[in-house]
């Protein structure tokens, strides 16, 4: 049983075989100049608070210990002291000015996105991220990995500790080069999301209809994980971010590989695909694009997301089914015309019509979708 398996959690940690991070107490220093600056500010203001805390709590504790009636003290009756009151107004004010100066310097630096060497556009969707490499023409979605997705279902009975980087892993990570100033531009497709990778030192909201931006120059190769931090609906907790930072050469190789894969996918668009090919590709597409709402078994969530299994749409005429997938349906179903390729669209529609006992038996080819 999954209940209470992590309690006492400290003991459990030692036995976890899969890759999991340990708990930490403090803010990360991160891997960019900005994240280090922010960490420094955080530490300065933290120690200022500690110092004031020692003073305030020290005085209270001293007073509790010594100025108690049970010790037979006679209460004083002073009730004002102008000098003292001016002092504890002015000193905090001076401390604050001391903090405002470095804070301003860092904020101006964070806002300076000029001189970027490449730009990545990040779009928040319910509940996945879309990354467009504006200089390379690459464009893909990044969703929660299948293992985490299976384990996070209510009553799955899968121990989260047995899943690699539970809830912090994606199917396709964002790959970035190190030592390059990268500008990110953000927008939202449906509601507001917020893109946060702590190691980069900041987060930014992705707002539908507006563009916000930020920048990072990653100094160290590695894998950096983060999450959506603006409540965006049911699966807000399940749209992680994974950034893999590679050397420039490795990054170039990765870009070339992606472009080649894209070209071969393009070639598929003109080809007749077999039922098997469509179903395999369809399941893959469904799991990363549809399952979050309609569920992996197509059963939906009553009152929120309609079932696809045995639904009139998915077992009815092909044209109507295709229309819902291509153009969406108010208020929540997004249009997939722009976001999925003709191959993926053909595959996912075919899959929905023939999976989980929806035995319609027909299929649609990418070429037919391209014609739409």
């Amino acid at each position: 049983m999954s209940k209470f398996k992590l309690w006492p959690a400290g003991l459990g940690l030692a036995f976890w075989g899969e890759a999991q991070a340990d708990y930490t107490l403090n803010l990360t220093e991160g891997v960019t100049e900005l994240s280090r600056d922010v960490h420094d500010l955080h530490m300065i203001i933290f120690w200022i608070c500690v110092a004031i805390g020692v003073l305030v709590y020290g005085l209270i504790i001293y007073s509790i210990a010594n100025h108690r009636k049970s010790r037979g003290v006679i209460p004083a009756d002073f009730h004002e002291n102008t000098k003292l009151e001016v002092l504890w107004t002015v000193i905090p004010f001076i401390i604050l000015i001391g903090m405002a100066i470095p804070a301003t310097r860092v904020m101006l630096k964070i806002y300076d996105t000029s001189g970027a060497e490449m730009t990545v556009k990040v779009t928040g969707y319910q509940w996945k991220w879309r990354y467009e490499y504006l200089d390379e023409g690459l464009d893909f979605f990044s969703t929660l990995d299948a293992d985490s997705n299976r384990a996070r279902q209510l009553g799955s009975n899968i121990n989260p500790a047995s899943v690699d980087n539970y809830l912090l892993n994606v199917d396709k990570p964002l790959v970035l080069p190190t030592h390059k100033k990268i500008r990110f531009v953000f927008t939202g497709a449906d509601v507001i999301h917020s893109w946060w990778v702590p190691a980069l030192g900041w987060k930014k909201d992705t707002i539908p209809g507006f563009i916000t931006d930020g920048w990072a120059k990653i100094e160290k190769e590695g894998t950096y994980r983060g999450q959506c931090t603006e409540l965006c609906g049911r699966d807000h907790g399940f749209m992680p971010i994974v950034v893999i930072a590679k050397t420039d050469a490795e990054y170039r190789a990765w870009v070339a590989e992606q472009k080649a894969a894209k070209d071969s996918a393009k070639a598929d668009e003109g080809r007749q695909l077999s039922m098997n090919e469509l179903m395999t590709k369809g399941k893959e597409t469904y799991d990363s694009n549809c399952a979050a709402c309609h569920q992996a078994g197509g059963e939906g969530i009553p009152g929120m997301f309609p079932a696809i299994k045995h639904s009139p749409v998915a077992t009815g005429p092909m044209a109507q089914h295709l229309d819902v997938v291509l153009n969406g349906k108010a208020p929540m179903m997004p249009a997939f015309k722009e976001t999925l390729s003709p191959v993926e669209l053909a595959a996912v529609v075919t899959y929905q019509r023939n999976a989980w006992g929806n035995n319609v038996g027909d299929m649609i080819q990418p070429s037919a979708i391209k014609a739409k």
Partner: protein
Amino acid sequence: MSADAATHDDHHDDHGPAKGFMRWVYTTNHKDIGTLYMITSLIMFMIGGAMALVIRLELFEPGMQFVDPGFFNQMTTLHALIMVFGAVMPAFAGMANWMIPIMIGAPDMALPRLNNWSFWLLPFGFVMLASTLFMDGGAPAAGWTLYPPLVLQTGNSFPFTIFTIHILGISSIMAAINIITTVLNMRAPGMTMMKLPLFVWTWVITAFLLIAVMPVFAGAVTMLLTDKYFGTSFFNAAGGGDPVLYQHLFWFFGHPEVYILILPSFGVVSQIIPTFSRKPLFGYSSMVYATASIGLLSFIVWAHHQYTVGMPVAGELYFTYATMLIAVPTGVKVFNWIATMWRGALTFETPMLFAIAFVMLFTMGGFTGLMMSISPADLQYHDTYFIVAHFHYVLVPGSVFALMAGTYYWLPKWTGHMYDERLGKLHFWLTTISVNVTFFPQHFLGLAGMPRRIPDYAVQFAEFNAWSSVGAFVFGFSQLLFVYIIIKAIRGGQKATDEVWEGASEHGLEWQLPSPPPYHSWITAPFVK
């Protein structure tokens, strides 16, 4: 409790309370209405607390064990709405009703019928809000901030949520009008503004904040309503609007709102610390000015809740500086409380214990608040558990502790009986230890990268979440003891003297009346020298 009170007041015993249930429906008596407010608040505190326990139960360990993520979001949303509008605000309104007329030497509130109405709107508002749980699509799940576009995806409960806010807003505005009118017009001879007890002063400032910002919130949610049903585009970029405009409107209300929740606490604590230190309050006038400055500053710092929305850098910097300034008057208050205790003759009855815990733990929330005002650092803290820890430190060991302190302080006056001191102290220690076990680890969670409002989390967050959940359950169940202590004091106990606390009669007019005070008190105004 009022039956024998009538005997203290032989001119008016024919004006004593009506009998039975209808007494409470028709009442225009400030004490009855105060009692109604506080009982409602206690019930809502339990309901909102039960929702918090659903949240903490699901978060006890990684993985989804108990609730659907959509329902989890409904719980976080309703927990906040109920605790803010149902528990803390009505509790302070109840204390204001009971205590302000007594403390300023007035026979009742200035507008008694309005008073009845402003209370009786609340139960209907909350029944409507609770009914959304049973509607198609469930209760609102977009967080208490109700940000569009997300909130526009709410099902049938959407208009009911909006109308609930309208009703609660009307109630609050009327209560605020009543308090201001009472304090400005009905003070006893000699009770000048600069002699008002601090609790009264903080409430006057709170009331002005309420009148200023409640209409803004009502307007903003009405714009949501027309965006959803009448085709307007206030917050829809595709129609020329801006989703962030809603956030500006919301936080123009929301930031003063959080001070509405804390300023009366400052007042309560400023009454209690001098009494149990057997010394006058240190720096009375600077306390009044500090409260007023906090009230004024609250109007000009709202966008520090929005450092990540991509404001122009000049906006970020302005809101950073303005927010940092709040630390100054807040610091003045903390130093004044310490100076009040300094070289006093302290005793540690339950109200004083809660008041001291308030000063220490509210200061903790103040420190994290100061850290968050540093906008570059807030780009990391924002929307993480660090924030959750911060605002629970200022709201639970802040506002709620002040309410508990005030309840223990005035309960003998209200009921005529001393509460059980031994149980009160037990309640204090259970509450104070568990509140820290609950919320202190959340600082670490936030800094380690755990976002707020998520129903499940990566396994490196497991340890502190488990601690937090254990603390929350101990905290929750300890409050049943609080309810028991109150009921016990209402039903009987050692008879309270007029003064109740040693030397208290020097610390306010309320201690010069019998315990409990007659149904109509200060029929003849006292003279305050």
